[in-house]
């Protein structure tokens, strides 16, 4: 048992997999000598050497194209994109090449690769370095999508992502890098597609992801005081999606509130709300409410950014609105 930060868990998770499988490599900008701009890859160069841990030029298409090619030829590469906003600079390779190649070749090409990237707001970095874009990846058939909310899950889901035979986009949340948790020593391996009930409850189901999970849990604690028993579900992975856990929870609570950091339109919350509105409709006792960042770019000023990103107060208000 050791107290571990989310940041350190990233390096531990990668190291765990590089240790066990020599075909796992890591490339990206400043990931080697510098240990990553968020210090999430610290020590990996020293431990695994420059062949397996490599700095790249500022060439995102070459980074993700490079790991795609490497995955086609016997490696299990991990590519880092410094900020998830930069997925846009290589979106063709990610969405049109990596995601579609297996299908388009009739299953000839397997792509066991992971794209890691720092996602989300709260750091006052402004509109081009703060986005939550997990919904971009979820919208693309052929990509698996992971977004852990705890240090332990970073390790377990990193292992699952690296061992998965399909391409995985792994979102590390900037706001959580400093968060801490006691984590057991030794190997940790999870399975993709399993949500976690962070807090059982009977009156309403609150679904959250990554940095919105602590927000939802905080809201649930406040709600308890007002006599509302909220169940908080941490999705952990968007693809595959654990719809069973979601449908089961709503069948017990009859109410659904989703809490997303991404902008309002076409987020994962809309997908989940739609699934429940079709398959869980007869269990619903009230409208489905989505709490999201408004449909605006993220502002830089602290006071504005804090207003934009969902807060526990907004979650509480949303839940009470449908009680």
């Amino acid at each position, binding site marked *: 048992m050791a107290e571990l930060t989310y940041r350190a868990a990233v390096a531990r998770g990668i190291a765990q997999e590089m240790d066990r499988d020599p*075909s796992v*490599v890591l490339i990206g900008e400043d990931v080697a000598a510098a240990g990553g701009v968020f210090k999430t890859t610290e020590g990996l160069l020293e431990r695994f050497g420059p*062949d*397996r841990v*490599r700095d*790249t*030029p500022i*060439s*995102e*298409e*070459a980074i*993700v*194209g*490079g*790991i*795609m*090619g*490497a*995955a*086609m*030829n*016997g*490696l299990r*590469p991990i590519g880092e994109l410094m900020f998830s906003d930069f997925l846009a600079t290589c979106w*063709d*390779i990610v969405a*049109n*090449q990596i995601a579609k*190649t*297996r*299908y*388009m*070749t*009739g*299953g*000839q*090409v*397997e792509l*066991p690769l992971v794209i890691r990237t720092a996602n989300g707001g709260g750091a006052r970095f402004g509109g081009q370095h703060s986005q939550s874009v997990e919904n971009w990846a979820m919208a693309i*058939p*052929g990509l698996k999508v992971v977004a852990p909310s705890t240090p332990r899950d970073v390790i377990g889901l990193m292992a699952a992502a690296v061992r998965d*035979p*399909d391409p995985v986009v792994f979102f590390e949340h900037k706001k959580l890098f400093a968060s801490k948790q006691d984590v057991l020593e030794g190997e940790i391996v999870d399975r993709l*597609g399993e949500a976690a009930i962070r807090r059982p409850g009977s009156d309403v189901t609150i679904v959250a992801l990554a940095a919105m999970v602590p927000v939802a849990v905080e809201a649930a604690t406040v709600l308890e005081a007002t006599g509302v028993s909220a169940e908080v579900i941490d999705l952990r992975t968007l*693809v*595959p*999606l*654990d*719809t*069973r856990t979601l449908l089961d929870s709503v069948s017990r609570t009859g109410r659904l509130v989703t809490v997303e950091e991404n902008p309002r339109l076409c987020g994962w919350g809309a997908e989940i709300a739609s699934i429940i509105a079709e398959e869980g409709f007869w269990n619903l006792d009230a409208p489905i409410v989505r709490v999201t960042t408004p449909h605006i770019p993220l502002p830089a000023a602290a006071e504005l950014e804090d207003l934009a990103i969902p807060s526990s107060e907004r979650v509480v208000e949303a839940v009470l609105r449908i009680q």
Partner: protein
Amino acid sequence: MTPDPTSDEAARLAMYREMVRARYFEQRAYDLFMEGIVQGTTHLGLGQEAIAAGFAAAMRPEDMTFCTYRGHNHTLLRGAPMSALLGELAGRSIGICAGKGGSMHLTDVTKNAMGSYAIVGAHLPIAVGAAWAGSLRGTDQVSVCFFGDGTTNIGAFHEAVNLAAVWKVPVVFVCENNLYMEYTPISEMTPVEHPAADRASAYGLESIIVDGNDVDAVYAVASRTIERARRGEGPSLVEAKTYRHKGHSRADPGEYRPEEEVTAWLARDPIPSYRARLEAVDVDPSTLDAIEADAMIEVDGATEETRNAPPPAAETLMTEVWADGGSEWRN
């Protein structure tokens, strides 16, 4: 390495055969498109066969080919079965990609034909990554990546060649300069005369230009650059001058091209000129006739197989998104 065709008659005949196979195959693909058997689109390499044949001859089986939608010839000449390729163009169950890819995505990984890519530039970094993985794994493989002149103006070209040069990756970039993008001359869209060769120095690479319609010349450049890559001396960027006999795709008559230009290039057709060269060194014409006849028989056979093949089964719609063979995104 492979015997030097320019001194080895058997190897030269082999290159001739490969060019003829590509030629007949693509002519048939065109006819079948007009007939409505080939679906969607085709981008033919008619007139550019010497580049495919010269490089294929210089490659080892383990070397990897990455090409574009205009890559029927490259995929075929790495050894992919003709009927599976034609079947793919026609969207049949026998297609090399089970009918899911279509003409722009011909792939045969068993022959290290690592894919045809339909978005300009995307496959260059992919070819670099595959080559890098080979060198890391000590496989001695080389990637050969084919693309067009217009591709030299897209960002992925720049990023890929730069990374390959910085990492000294065993990849050979081959620009097939056929003078046109889709309908626009490359000369109008590039500030340098040689869109690839004049960019080589930007990556610390040698400027290499070859007559893409002379299969012997292509072979020579191919073996030189491939062996350089195999020796760990890094990438090369080759510009092969050539011309496409037909339009850009589908039924495009290519009328945006001056008639004299077309006639001049048709006169430089790589296949008859190579036949003449072989005859000049006393190759028996009947040998060459036989090669042509065999190729036609192969094409006819593939055509029959394709005509008789059923479309893909409905169930296959939902297969092969994931490695488990399926497409489930939920439990």
